[in-house]
């Protein structure tokens, strides 16, 4: 008993650099407040309060991030007993996440495109029943989406700042579980949406088991889960290196799954297609940022010294991902599936930057994430506008001749597709340029050549859509283009403008992305 008390006195609370972690605390705190809103506000007032709270939170977190970032120590700060590292890449990733989440929240909050919003009014009502048809016409929505979004965002922020594998694992689950749930909440095509949720969930749980076994093996190898300790152990130890590489392999498989890098992408097309479009936008933009933030940190922090052993394997993975995305993307007939395969191809390009393992590689990948995320949010915003009586008209044939119905929407969509293809004067071009030049500098010329070939192949399927929109005759009973309300307009405008600005004047964002390296 006396031992217990002496221990209780010794137990010191860890130091917390509150100012540095304030953005994360704000997001997680607001998520809890948002749950209280759900519990105590009458249903018809929840939407307004939730939207206000979420937007204010994101803005507040962004402001506190900027204030802190202005005079943050260049070397970074470790806090919470060193489980979090707030260094320059963390700040950049947090800023990117907050910005992209803002865009996604605007899409989530929109109630003009689909009356009542893209989310189901009561998820527990069975699809296909009379009640379900009643609720499809009803204005309410399941406003729990807002706290779930904030929870997921908080998880992402912790994930890309985590300095050890245990924190990373818990953060991975915090970001994943809300996404599994949100995937199943679509108002229309509910069965598809629920199937997407089940598939995402089961495959996600399977992947986290692999991630976890990887952690266990690395822990066995290094005796610690801190990235820096693993790096030290890898530099000199008498234990077998096979243990290190087996652990790393399993860990990286889990990460690649989340980042939807092929061949671990199998969930991506189904889940992107089945989820409500705003959730797809959130998932496509923010999850990718968080996952690649994690990949960068793990590769740089724990495995940089052994890179000649594993780099070849990740070369293969990057090539496979680009090939799968570019080739299978060509065969798709659904817009959302097509963008999903495009995201698989982009994940391959991002991986090229990530395995460069230089400061240029890091800053290039960070810039690419920002550019790609903004373009993606705007793209899904446009996808949500083209509708027929059943909801979104996502079949490609329905997009034929869209330019004749709505020149503006077709024009913006064309611009975004060109950015995804990487045409000059768009952010996509700059992103590819910085990533590929970083890869060239670290001696990966063959990989860059392959990547260029696949960007050309991928460009073809974006062009196919553009040709379809401009040079085909619209079908007589084709879809209509909804005039978006303020929220969706704002999200699309932000995304499209940023795509242009980052394409024409990229230097300021490149400076932020290259302001400093990781600290471990």
């Amino acid at each position, binding site marked *: 008993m006396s*031992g*217990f008390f002496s*221990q209780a006195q*010794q*137990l*010191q*609370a*860890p130091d917390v650099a509150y100012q540095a972690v304030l953005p994360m605390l704000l997001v*997680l705190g607001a*998520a*809890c407040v948002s*749950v209280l809103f*759900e519990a105590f506000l*009458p*249903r*018809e007032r929840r939407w307004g309060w939730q939207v206000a709270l979420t937007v204010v939170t994101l803005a507040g977190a962004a402001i506190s991030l900027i204030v802190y970032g202005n005079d943050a120590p260049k070397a970074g700060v470790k806090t*919470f*007993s060193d*489980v*979090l590292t707030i260094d320059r890449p963390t700040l950049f990733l947090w800023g990117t996440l907050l910005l992209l989440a803002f865009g996604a929240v605007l899409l989530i909050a929109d109630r003009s495109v689909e009356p009542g919003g893209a989310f189901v009014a*009561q*998820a*527990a*009502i069975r699809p296909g029943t*009379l*009640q379900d048809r*009643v*609720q499809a016409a009803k204005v309410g929505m*399941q406003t*729990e989406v807002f*706290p*779930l979004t904030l*929870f997921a965002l*908080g*998880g992402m922020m*912790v994930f890309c700042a985590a300095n050890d594998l*245990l*924190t990373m694992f*818990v*953060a991975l*689950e*915090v970001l994943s*579980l*809300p996404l*599994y*749930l949100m995937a*199943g*909440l679509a108002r229309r095509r509910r069965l598809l949406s629920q199937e997407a949720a089940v598939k995402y969930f089961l495959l996600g749980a399977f992947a986290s088991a692999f991630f976890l*076994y990887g952690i266990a*093996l690395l822990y*066995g*190898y290094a005796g610690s889960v801190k990235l820096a300790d693993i790096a030290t152990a890898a530099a000199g130890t008498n*234990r*077998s290196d*096979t*243990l290190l590489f*087996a652990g790393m392999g399993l860990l990286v498989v889990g990460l690649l799954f989340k980042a939807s890098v092929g061949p671990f992408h199998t969930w991506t097309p189904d889940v992107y297609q089945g989820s409500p479009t705003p959730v797809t936008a959130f998932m496509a933009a923010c999850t990718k940022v968080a996952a690649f933030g994690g990949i960068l940190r793990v590769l740089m922090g724990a495995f940089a010294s052994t890179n000649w052993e594993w780099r070849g394997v990740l070369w293969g993975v990057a090539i496979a991902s680009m090939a799968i995305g570019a080739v299978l993307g060509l065969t798709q007939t659904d817009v959302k599936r097509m963008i999903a395969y495009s995201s698989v191809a982009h994940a391959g390009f991002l991986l090229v930057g990530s395995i460069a393992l230089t400061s240029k590689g890091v800053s290039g990948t960070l810039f690419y994430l920002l550019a790609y995320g903004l373009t993606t949010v705007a793209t899904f915003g446009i996808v949500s506008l083209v509708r027929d009586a059943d909801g979104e008209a996502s079949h490609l044939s329905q997009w034929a001749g869209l330019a004749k119905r709505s020149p503006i929407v077709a024009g913006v969509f064309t611009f975004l597709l060109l950015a995804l293809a990487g045409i000059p004067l768009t952010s996509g071009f700059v992103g590819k340029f910085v990533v590929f030049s970083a890869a060239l500098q670290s001696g990966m010329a063959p990989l860059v050549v392959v990547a260029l070939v696949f960007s050309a192949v991928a460009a073809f399927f974006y062009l196919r859509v553009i040709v379809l929109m401009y040079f085909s005759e619209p079908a007589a009973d084709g879809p209509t283009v909804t005039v978006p309300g303020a929220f969706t307009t704002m999200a699309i405008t932000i995304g499209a403008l940023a795509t242009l600005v980052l394409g024409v004047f990229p230097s300021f964002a490149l400076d932020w992305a290259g302001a400093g390296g990781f600290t471990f």
Partner: protein
Amino acid sequence: MTGAELVFVPLGAVALGSSVLVVTTDQLVRAALWLVVALGALAGCFLLLAAELVAWVQVLIYVGAVVVLLLFGIMLTRAPIGRSVDLDSGNRVAALVVALGTAGTLVTVVVGGFRTASIDLGDGSAGSAGTVGAGLFRYWVLPFELLSVLLLAALVGAIVLSRRDIGPRARDGGED
């Protein structure tokens, strides 16, 4: 053979055998019940490794809560209680290849890496609630708090998906 090994061999055999049954049995409910046996045997292994707290949490959370929830899941989905013929999918061969690959790699890696390592089981206090708790709250405070956030999110999500007619019924037009 030491005492610990004498206890480990039957425990390991039970864990292994019941896990095989979880994966192969053609009766859903039995799969869940075999899972209980496997998890219980693993709890025994944890005790052998002097991880006292983990062992009891295993019994409480896994055997007590998780499997009960899974059984609820089976019952509520009206799964057949008896034999189900189509419980296995056709990709047995593929699964077998994957499994043998995984098992082969893991076994060589793990056993090769630790053939010479040895552990002494003398110090029984290593895994007591006090020491684990001290470690938890001294170094792992943030993940611990994140866990509470995770549980809250899971709770909210589960309620969203399953609970009907929340709020005033009259205003909803009574369509339920």
